[in-house]
């Protein structure tokens, strides 16, 4: 059994791999972290991590281009109910659909739409880029021991599109950037972060460790 980190040509996988390896070592986690393009590996994995950088349609198509991967992911998430982590665009792909350059369907596991960030004031630059704090919305075991709020730890964000969830219950945390923007979503065995935990030093490594310990 492994933690499968899906490699579909979307962004910096190496940092996610190294971050997971480091926390796995630290907590004595007994499964290997494996970079994979193989649907069979995903099907049998203990946990799955879906990263993603770049445009929603590019990532969606890149993933769909891996033979059998969509079905394997659906089986893993919907039937096996094992822990799943989506990062950045990998989190946005959980949505019903994304509207970036064109309208395209996501996995639809968490209802909502991924739309451009359109600030009300030009002093808010887009992309939302850099370190931001978060505000807790609903508690979640993957956030255990992680201090949120204005005086809490920071996470590194890098995105021009944001996930508007339909249901408040699916939100774990928001980040304030000209209003609350979705930072973390979760439902059942699915957890997703808009920010990059593998680039978020203390907060990020703690979150990855919690994810490896999580049994939904």
């Amino acid at each position: 059994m492994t933690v499968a980190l899906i490699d579909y040509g979307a962004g910096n996988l190496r940092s996610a791999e190294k971050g997971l390896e480091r926390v796995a070592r630290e907590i004595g986690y007994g499964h290997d972290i494996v970079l994979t393009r193989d649907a069979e590996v995903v099907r049998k994995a203990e946990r799955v991590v879906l990263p993603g950088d770049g445009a929603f349609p590019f990532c969606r198509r890149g993933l769909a281009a891996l033979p059998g991967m969509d079905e394997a992911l659906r089986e893993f998430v919907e039937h096996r109910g094992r822990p799943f982590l989506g990062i950045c665009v990998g989190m946005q792909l959980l949505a019903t659909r994304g509207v970036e350059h064109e309208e395209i369907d996501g996995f639809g596991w968490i209802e909502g739409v991924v739309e451009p960030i359109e600030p009300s004031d030009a002093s808010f630059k887009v992309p939302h880029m850099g370190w931001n704090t978060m505000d807790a919305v609903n508690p979640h075991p993957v956030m255990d021991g992680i201090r949120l709020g204005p005086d809490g730890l920071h996470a590194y964000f890098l995105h021009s599109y944001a996930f508007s969830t339909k249901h408040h219950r699916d939100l774990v945390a928001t980040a304030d950037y000209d209003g609350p923007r979705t930072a973390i979503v979760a439902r059942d065995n699915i957890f997703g972060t808009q920010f990059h935990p593998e680039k978020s030093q203390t907060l990020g490594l703690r979150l990855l460790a919690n994810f490896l310990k999580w049994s939904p």
Partner: protein
Amino acid sequence: MLKARVIPCLDVKDGRVVKGVNFVDLVDAGDPVQAAEAYDAAGADELCFLDITASHENRGIILDVVRRTAEVCFMPVTVGGGIRTLHDIRNLMEAGADKVSINSAAVKDRQFVADAVRKVGGQSVVIAIDAKRVSEPGAPPKWEVFTHGGRNRTGIDAIGYAREVVGLGAGELLLTSMDRDGTKAGFDLDLTRAVADAVSVPVIASGGVGTLDHLVEGIREGHASAVLAASIFHFGTYTIRQAKEHMLASGIPMRLDS
């Protein structure tokens, strides 16, 4: 609240930090990976590697530096210097870079910017602009884009160029004043503000930092989202923590996670 960023920049040549880095605990002052790790521990918000390797054969060495950095450094890393092709970009991102900074190749061919944005997403494409004031003293300020470390004048207006590359999808600008670079006289605040106010993306101010107040000015008067500095940090004049505490005390929101 989103915080202003402090970004140390390391010049790397043939896999070694140029001029070295003067930290107490560093075994090898010329090793970029050790320097990156030290900056990570010191609470730098991002790291920038500028590869100034001249020979074509040694250009691959930076990939190994980036790979090893990704193993020990859990903050964003931008790599610039000599990026000419989509292949260069893909190699750097696969090695563990989060963003790539493109300079001369963007000046030469705007289509390259658009192609890079399509390939890796605008959020990972930083355009580095080296600008120099070309207006006479007393005349309305005007800056031009220069390449090759400030030697080659392009005739391109820096503000117009900034707007153009952002229009092509670039997600961030790294703006260096060639007049101020290396002077320790502070950022060219007029230039920084003119560019930052002209574009919708974050601007990193660079060139001329000598004091901690310069960092404050870059954000407050230059309207930059981030400040980049090299020598004041490398030579131990100030720590990252001192810089961030000073900026915070001056009323700029900063990240001081311990």
